[in-house]
């Protein structure tokens, strides 16, 4: 499968897909998208990169073991739920705050962190499976 064309295009394709996945993740609250879909897109991006340029290249590029990314995501989602406890509302209640940075109204919420956690879990888990499967193939 490692044709020259594929290998040349793959890095651009992958970076575009990862960028797009983040875009999908962030718009998810108001438009179609969200952490789960975003995670799937990013995972397929890494799978493509792995098929084209080898598993080692992917592992180098993402620095951490994908399962660790997954774990961090789960932790992040769980912790974002704890935020609500000091406000005396049940676990996982969304807490919203608006900050004005450079005159841009940026709305931050624990829900966003929760969704980012979902994204990371999905990316990590599926990438680690895909990479482990590809590993043998490239031998």
């Amino acid at each position: 499968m490692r044709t020259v064309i594929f290998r040349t295009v793959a890095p651009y394709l992958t970076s575009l897909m990862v960028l797009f996945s983040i875009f999908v993740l962030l718009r998810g609250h108001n438009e179609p998208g969200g952490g789960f879909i975003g995670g799937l897109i990013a995972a397929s991006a890494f799978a493509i990169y792995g098929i084209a340029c080898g598993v080692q290249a992917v592992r180098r590029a993402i620095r951490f073991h994908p399962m660790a990314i997954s774990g961090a995501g789960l932790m992040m989602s769980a912790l974002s739920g704890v935020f609500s406890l000091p406000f005396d509302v049940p676990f996982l209640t969304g807490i919203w705050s608006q900050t004005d940075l450079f005159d841009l109204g940026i709305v931050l919420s624990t829900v966003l962190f929760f969704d980012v956690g979902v994204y990371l879990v999905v990316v990590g888990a599926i990438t680690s499976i895909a990479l482990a499967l590809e590993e043998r193939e490239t031998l």
Partner: protein
Amino acid sequence: MGTGAQSMTFFALVLPFLAALAAPALTKAFKHNAAWILALAPAWIFFHFAGFLPEVADGSGVTGGFQWVPSFNVNFSWFLDGLSLTFALLISGIGTFIVLYSGGYLKGHQHQGRFFSFILMFMGAMQGLVVSDSFLMLFVFWELTSITSFLLIGFDHSREASRRAAIQALVVTGLGGLSLLAGLLVIWNITGYSELSLLLLTKDALRESPFYLLALVLVLGGAFTKSAQFPLHFWLPNAMEAPTPVSAYLHSATMVKAGVYLVMRLNPVMGETVAWETILPLFGGATLLVGTLLAVRQTDLKLMLAYTTVASLGLLVMLTGFGSDKAVEAAALYLIAHSLFKGTLFMVAGLIDHEAGSRDITKLGGLRKAMPITFAAALLAALSMGGLPPFTGFLAKEEIYAALGFADGWSGFLTLVAIAGNALMFVIGFAVALKPFLGDMPKSVEKAHEGPILLWAGPAVLSVLGLVLAIFSGVYHHYLSSPMSSAIAGNEIHVHISVIPHMGMPLLLSVVTIAAGIAAYRMIDRSRALMDRILTTIGWGPDQGFDQVIRGLVRVASGVTRVVHNGRLEVYMIVTFILVAIALILPMLVFDELPEMPEFPDLRYYEWAVLVIAVIGLGAVANANDRLTAIVCLGIQGFAVALIFMLLGAPDLSFTQFMVETLSVVILALVMTRLRLSPADHRPPAERFVDISVAGLCGVGFGLLMLKVTQLPFDTTLSEFFNANARVIAHGRNVVNVIIVDFRGLDTLGEIAVVMIAGLAILALIRIRSGKTATHDPEAEKA
């Protein structure tokens, strides 16, 4: 009670666990001297609970706590009366010395910090158990004591005997714990109360219920396993594999008394029935006799003591079951006395083992000069155990005989059992306290000398306490034994017995016991040989029975596994999907619930196109000649479905479907390459036909189900709520995503945890398969 005292009690319940957390670090910093710091925790708890003594002695129980799960009426609440307070004081008081003793006993052990941690956790669990008011809290702490006991028995986990003993204890007491849970739930259902303090006010509600016997049997299942009643006693002597501080603390002074505590606690509401007054004395008496007889056979100090502990537990159960006020007094007095002298004797056994290097009574002797403090403590404890004045053991024994007497045949029989048991315990007590210290010193123990203060502080204080409490019996009765007896009996009792002997039946029986004991002591070697011969002739005991049961269980399990889990993937798949098809279609046929066929919708040309693509994809899957083609064709059909979602206005769903389809095709293709299957599909046509029909049936089933569901009246409450509130409450226009991350966030949290765990499991599976290639690819191994 003020909120201050309330939070202090809560702190007292949590403190052992905090200390357990700190223990490893402290031990790293101060080595074995960390014991001095850690012992402050139980000491503080002791003084905190001691503060309740005057209040409880006046006859008022102290309750407190917090709401835990109000919707289920479950509270974190405690209840202090004479019974639980005495237990709490024993646990924290003896616990203080056990922590010190562990400091000396395991000095220099590489896992001493871990040991401190375990034993403090156990302390917290036991403390929680005895002061719990709510049933569920009681059960949680009950199970925690089983688990910590497992950790402590198996502390020396490199030895197989330890591991076996730990598992055995966990299995037996764990089963008992489940039985207890069921029993408590039955009681909860009968009375409607989930708190002990309220249950005690119900008087006859339990006794008159038709389910009384069920509740009784289930609760006793818990109590008898925990308190090692015959024939479930075998795990307790095996638990002596644990380091001696554990034996002294868990398996004599505290944990094994949890069952007795439970029986005593429920005596006011479950006692005084025929069943109660038959079952308890019968099992208790049998345990008493079996325990003492087996103890005679042993030569290991710890095992001798372990079997007398079994016997003592039997005696306590027997007395509680007998049910008269006097018997209850006797049980209370004996329980306290036993904790003091048995704790001492165990620590003495450990001390001898530690300093002289052996616990075998036939190899020990002449240690009195080398270890004078130990000898003194052992002697005091043995005098109490033998029931001689002026010790707490004497008070207990007098009260036992006063309670049983020879009023009728039944009590006369129990009296004989008690005399035999007590005489044999007298023998064992003095055998442990005298044999190692008197006579000639064998060469092997010549280097023995007195242990450090950490080791002898506990036995010294506890044994002296056994004397002091008896001498100041007025104070003792006022603060401890009277409130405790009143709590067990459920009515007010004043204990009067003092160390000055009165002429009468009890004293006479005491003298008989002691005489019999002295006679038996002189023949101990002969009776040991006799017991040995008898037991070898029988050649079977519950301990072997346990192994047989476990072996049988394993055999049945592996038999079932071989049949059900035979490793042929095709069979699994066919069975699974046939069952799915049956589950979908059969109910509709049986209950005549088949959906009406809807009118065929008026489709647009592009909708037709998508439909045709899906059908072509399916046909291609069925006809594909090699596996990769089949997988890719499955993708075609999946994309077509995604397109349908899109056309029907569900972009989120369609989006996800696209991604899932893509990834599943990629991953399936990768799996195929790893399985090294031949690319060609070589199923014979018949098999292929079966597969296709099963798949078709599943498809038809799901289709029918979907049709049926859409034809049912649709409850729109939820969708209306989400549509109306997604913007307002959750600040999001994408309702689907708002539901996922906000309204039903907890579900999502669970789901992503599943995703991650599934990922880990799959990763492990792949690793196992590629075990051989891993050596060629060290990078992969590292990653």
